[in-house]
């Protein structure tokens, strides 16, 4: 049963990419609804199966590592697979209504969407360094294609910038992989970690990890390498922006985190860990500050992503040379932050798309009076904002609470200041948009009313982000699941 679920999980997005390539947008939408349903059921089934039986390695093609490619199906991976099913499914449903079906190039939206999804699954489950590279490229190229789809010069400029940054990041990662293979003779992360656990660290291999993490940091838009992100996320169509901010940047971060947790202790150094934490803190403060100063609605949300990504990188100092409990707290905090930010940011971009559709402008000062016409979307935006501000009982609060405990537990109190400053600044940019939308403008009230289904989807995501804090214990329990170390089941 589990084997069929695995095959279904890998097969569905790729197969639907081909199917939707052969249809036009409207028929592709119907086909994609079926696909989203199938993929959601398969993801849920796999999550339940892993919850019941524990994780395992899945050797593709029947070959085990190091000769073949093994997928690592553990609690964290299936949680992210499920998260992807929820968020990408919601974005897909939203896009089906939001995107104009009459433009001929929009038929290519669905194949790119499904390729993106399959790349994400490949990354969450990946256990092979080179296979992760191919998965990353699958994600990057389909994301660039989605940003550029039918776009104007501005969109093309943003997507070219995105493409060049993504390619440079991938090459740095691949160079690291080359050094790893040259040193360890294997591409399996688990194989390298096992060998390192009872051998001294060979000279020169620290460089491999540094290159890989630097490349991934560029792809995750860690400060000061973040400048490509806001134009791309700001100018894409709203469902695409939601996908990019909620899931795509998390994919490269996830690989970096996995590498750090498996190999950071032997190959990393205290200075590197603190430096990455410092850059993450700078991202929190600088990203939030710039978000407060943007004139366009989606740019605010995009810069907020730069800030929220910064929190994730606190994982690096908080898991290096600390006690087991602190490290676990930091990992749990990171997991919750990924989940709650994915839900909240997807809700925020989708709601922002509705607001822009309604007022016909992407400027914040044009939002005046929209509160009377689109209270539902505005409320979703606000609920998501509450999660970003990390007020209880949201998932954002639970995440930052765990990070705070980890900082105090490890004696690295300085990260607490970052957590506080980030919360205050995010409150500032969310309230700024609220204020603008409650101001009554003197101009004529000409609002377009988007369809009900467009408004419901961000609301559901925002409520999920809000409720994440209440069920965080259940969510985090999958991380402690037993893991069958060797071989396929």
């Amino acid at each position: 049963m589990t084997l069929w679920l695995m095959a279904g999980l890998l097969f569905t997005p790729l197969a639907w990419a081909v199917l939707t390539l052969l249809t036009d947008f409207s028929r592709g939408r119907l086909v994609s609804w079926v696909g989203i349903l199938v993929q959601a059921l398969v993801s849920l089934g796999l999550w339940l199966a892993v919850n019941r039986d524990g994780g395992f390695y899945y050797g593709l093609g029947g070959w085990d590592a190091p000769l073949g490619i093994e997928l690592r199906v553990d609690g964290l991976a299936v949680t992210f697979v499920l998260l992807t099913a929820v968020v990408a499914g919601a974005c897909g449903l939203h896009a089906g209504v939001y995107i104009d079906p009459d433009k001929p190039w929009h038929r290519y939206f669905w194949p790119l969407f499904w390729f993106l999804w399959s790349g994400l699954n490949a990354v969450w489950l990946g256990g092979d360094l080179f296979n992760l590279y191919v998965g990353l490229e699958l994600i990057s190229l389909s994301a660039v294609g989605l940003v550029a789809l039918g776009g104007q010069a501005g969109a093309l400029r943003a997507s070219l910038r995105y493409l060049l940054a993504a390619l440079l990041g991938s090459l740095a990662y691949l160079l690291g992989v080359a050094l790893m293979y040259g040193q360890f003779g294997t591409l399996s992360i688990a194989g390298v970690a096992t060998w390192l656990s009872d051998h001294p660290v060979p000279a020169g291999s620290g460089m491999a990890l540094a290159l890989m993490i630097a490349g991934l940091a560029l792809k995750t838009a860690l400060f000061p390498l973040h400048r490509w992100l806001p134009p791309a996320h700001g100018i894409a169509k709203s469902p695409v922006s939601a996908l990019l901010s909620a899931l795509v940047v998390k994919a490269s971060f996830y690989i970096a985190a996995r590498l750090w947790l498996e190999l950071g202790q032997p190959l990393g150094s205290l200075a590197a860990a603190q430096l990455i934490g410092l850059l993450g803190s700078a991202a929190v403060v600088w990203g939030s500050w710039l978000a407060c100063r943007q004139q366009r609605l989606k740019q605010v949300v995009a810069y907020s992503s730069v800030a929220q990504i910064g929190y994730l990188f606190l994982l690096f100092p908080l898991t290096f040379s600390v006690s087991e409990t602190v490290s676990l707290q930091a990992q749990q905090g990171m997991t919750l932050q990924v989940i709650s930010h994915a839900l909240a940011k997807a809700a925020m971009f989708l709601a922002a798309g509705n607001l822009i559709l309604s007022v016909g402008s992407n400027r914040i000062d044009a939002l005046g009076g929209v509160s009377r016409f689109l209270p539902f979307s505005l409320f979703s935006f606000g609920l998501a904002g509450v999660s970003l501000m990390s007020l209880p009982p949201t998932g954002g609060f639970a995440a930052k609470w765990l990070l705070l405990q980890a900082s105090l537990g490890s004696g690295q109190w300085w990260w607490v200041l970052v957590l506080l400053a980030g919360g205050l600044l995010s409150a500032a940019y969310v309230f700024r948009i609220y204020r603008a939308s409650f101001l009554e403008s003197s101009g004529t009230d000409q609002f377009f009313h988007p369809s009900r289904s467009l408004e419901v989807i961000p609301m559901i995501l925002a409520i999920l982000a809000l409720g994440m804090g209440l069920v965080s214990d259940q969510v985090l329990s999958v991380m402690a699941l037993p893991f069958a170390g060797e071989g396929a089941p």
Partner: protein
Amino acid sequence: MIRVVRLLILAVACLALTAALAASIWAIAGNPSPVNLPQLLSENLDRSGVEHPVTAVLLNFRSYDTLLEIGVLVIAGIAGISMAKTASLEDPELRTSDALLYALQRWFIPLMLVLAGYLLWAGADRPGGAFQAGAVLAATGVLMRLGGVPMEFLRPGLLLRLGLALGFMVFLLVAVASAIGGDAFLAYPPGMAKILIVVIESVLTLSIAMVLLALFVSAPVNDAEDPEEGSPS
């Protein structure tokens, strides 16, 4: 002045990085490697269905990489044709009446087709394979295109999209067929590996050539564009 300073800083940074990298490579080259993958590979080669180790790695041991890689290629193809101008595929500008090109075509095209076929066939036990054959096939197509041979099938219609996806589709179906039987995803049924690999390679060759050719031909661009969100349309 500032430009010169920036240039210097960048040059020094790149040099330092290169030096650090070279130092690590020098250090790693002296370390023994704990796993001997080539040996493991040659021990398992007879179970893979092909004699040429690189083909065995690409289409059996690490076939998931290849599957996703074809996906990347298809994405590029999709993004390419999504920007193509439908009407311009018979662009008269692209026709050249160069005598040299004409002669080249007369002699080269059959030769290149034979070469592509040979590369595909050789892949099982010698260097060569789907990708090289596909690249040669695409180059042939480019040459024909430059010579003004009409290529109706490259219109962004159903046929082109079918061609783009064909190789990927067959690969995917083979991958899932064994999984339905209870085996792992991408596993070949025992005894069928060789024939399946040959089938996959043949369709991949066509699709790879098609994608590369489509990307070349789709370069004339489309005028129509979406208004940016929130701008008056």
